């Protein structure tokens, strides 16, 4: 695939890898924010191409993992008891809720009408095809995905599709990065920021973070060469003691992002404090549907108050160390439950629930035992 294959060229990657080894003189800890990046790192075993001084830690960047269990419970209730058609991304089907009443696959088995869709527009089409049913799209994701939800909501409003609503659990990445940097035991010295988030919202959130915390931030793509090039820039900035914002992923990221998409986000959503599973309440960390679109907001339409249950901050059960893993304070392999009490079939915490979660990615591709 053009503009993908090229960034996997072995010679180029060897060159970037060598450049990192050459640039580094001391240990550094860098966090890649996005689960897609974690996925690529593990998929391509990029850690094996990095010098031992460099520690890559994995951020909270899997929106599937950080969706509060209470939202999943609410979705499940709507589908099982409310009789709605619940549409969502396939990634969400196997994520357990907070009440441990099972995942959406189990809800399907119990008779709920749960459908996997590739886009919120597919869910909107379902609503148009079944005017007698309520169709609810459980929409998760960062600023990359939120515009798709916005488009579906605006199209429903424009077209008067009264039986369509969105149960939105969209989150904003920059506030979570700020929270991590501000944490007491923070170990993260530099960030690879999420390239596709920035493709939408641009890079203006980052200079204040660089300034305040002194950590370089490199907006990075998702292919092996992107990631190594991002690491190299980050290492060079750290080694030089000159933290700044850089954009490695220039082919997709403009400083202003995508103004059309940002305007849609602005029209449909407002920025709110929001709970992230495993991380707790993140100030300004979420997007809520504006009251103007209440008719298509499943929270209002069905009078759901998932966060009132007050446990959204919970990261996992019992001895789960999700809060540490998601902040880069603990590597998955160092969690005592990893691969023992906690597996993708029976996850104890957020980072094990989706295959993009840091614990699950390690479990699957790197090692099953600590």
């Amino acid at each position: 695939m053009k503009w993908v294959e090229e960034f996997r060229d072995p010679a180029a990657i060897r060159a970037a890898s060598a450049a990192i080894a050459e640039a580094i003189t001391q240990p550094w800890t860098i966090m890649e924010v996005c689960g897609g990046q974690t996925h690529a790192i593990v998929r391509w075993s990029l850690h094996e191409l990095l010098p031992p001084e460099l520690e890559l830690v994995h951020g909270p960047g899997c929106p599937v993992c950080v969706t509060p269990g209470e939202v999943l419970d609410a979705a499940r209730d709507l589908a099982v008891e409310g009789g709605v058609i619940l549409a969502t991304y396939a990634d969400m089907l196997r994520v357990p809720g907070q009440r441990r009443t099972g995942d959406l696959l189990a809800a399907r088995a119990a008779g709920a009408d749960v459908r996997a869709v590739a886009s919120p527009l597919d869910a909107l089409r379902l609503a148009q095809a079944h005017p007698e049913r309520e169709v609810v799209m459980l929409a998760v994701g960062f600023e990359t995905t939120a515009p798709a939800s916005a488009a579906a909501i605006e199209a429903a409003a424009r077209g008067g599709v009264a039986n369509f609503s969105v149960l939105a659990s969209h989150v904003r990445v920059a506030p979570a990065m700020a929270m991590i940097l501000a944490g007491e035991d923070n170990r993260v010295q530099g960030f690879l920021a999420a390239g596709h988030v920035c493709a939408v919202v641009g890079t203006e959130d980052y200079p204040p973070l660089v300034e305040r915390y002194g950590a370089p931030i490199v907006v990075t793509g998702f292919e092996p060469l992107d990631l190594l090039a991002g690491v190299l820039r980050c290492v060079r900035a750290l080694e030089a003691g000159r933290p700044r914002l850089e954009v490695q992923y220039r082919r997709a990221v403009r400083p202003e992002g995508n103004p059309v998409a940002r305007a849609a986000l602005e029209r449909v959503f407002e920025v709110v404090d929001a709970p992230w599973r495993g991380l707790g309440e993140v100030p300004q960390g979420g997007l809520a549907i504006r009251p103007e679109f209440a008719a298509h907001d499943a929270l209002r339409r069905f009078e759901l108050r998932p966060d009132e249950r007050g446990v959204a901050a919970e990261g996992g059960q019992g001895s789960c160390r999700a809060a540490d893993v998601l902040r880069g304070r603990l590597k998955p392999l160092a969690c005592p439950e990893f691969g023992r009490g906690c597996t993708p079939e029976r996850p104890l915490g957020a980072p094990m629930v989706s295959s993009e979660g840091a614990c699950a990615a390690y479990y699957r591709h790197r090692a099953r035992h600590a």
Partner: protein
Amino acid sequence: MPFSDYERVVLAHGGGGRVMQRLIRDLFVAAFGGAALERGHDGAVLRPRGPIAVTTDAFTVSPRTFPGGDLGSLAVHGTVNDLAMCGARPLALTASFILEEGLELRELATLVEHMAAAARSCGVEVVTGDTKVVERGKGDGVFITTTGVGELLVDPPPGPERLAPGDAIVVSGPIGEHGVAVLAAREGLSLEPPLVSDAGPVHAAALALVEACEVHCLRDPTRGGLASVLAELATASGSSMHIREADVPVRPAVADTCELLGLDPLYVACEGRFVAFVPAAQVDDALACLRRSGCEQAAHIGALGPASADPLVFAESALGGRRILDLLSSEQLPRIC
């Protein structure tokens, strides 16, 4: 239709009376032919010359027709292939049909004809069968379960218990075409040219290999794809396996579809490929034999390591890194993350 006054399957087609008899006689027996079926008994007699292998599979593919195959041919090839994976020459098949009330008989006839054609071209006879009809909403058109009986070519036959440290791993052709073609057909992705399933018979190539080399194990990477089959066999063998991803043949259209949908082709199903494990010294003979049998893209993709307390499958990427190929929880689904 010559085999029914109805255009669709009705409950009477499974009712044990004339309507059913006519369907059996004028559709099934007519298509499959053969002395065993015409005998009109509820079972068939076979006279194998030695030890036999038996294998069974239910076929429930949706959509029933996809580029490169359909439920009918698949139900024959899948079981013929499983026999070959046991090192057995296919001798006979049984076919059991669960029909949903409402299925168009014309479609059923086409599927049955394709089954019969597939059986003929594999040199195997459908010797006995069964038909049940379930009420509308209690089935999905047609389900076909075939069971195969075959004669072992070698005894002991290839099997997981014969896997040995050092064995070379060979795959018979490019992987993942079936899974992606069926997904594309089901989800209405429009591919140009359409992605074609690899579904087809592998017994000729597999059995040629068994005759040419000391084959330790054969397996067709169906559900869960190549990675899952290797993970299962690593556990069964007690040895880790090492493969080189770059050596695993994947056609560009499969690779691209996987990129688009977030799938890993190593976990995508094939229905016309197999993996063979042979002693390292015989790998060139094995590849030559496969190429002679029409498997031009057969490839040596890796080897078994020494025995291990925690036998895993390791894949070395094109970039040199190594990852574990573990069993997934379930089937891969398209992802957005």
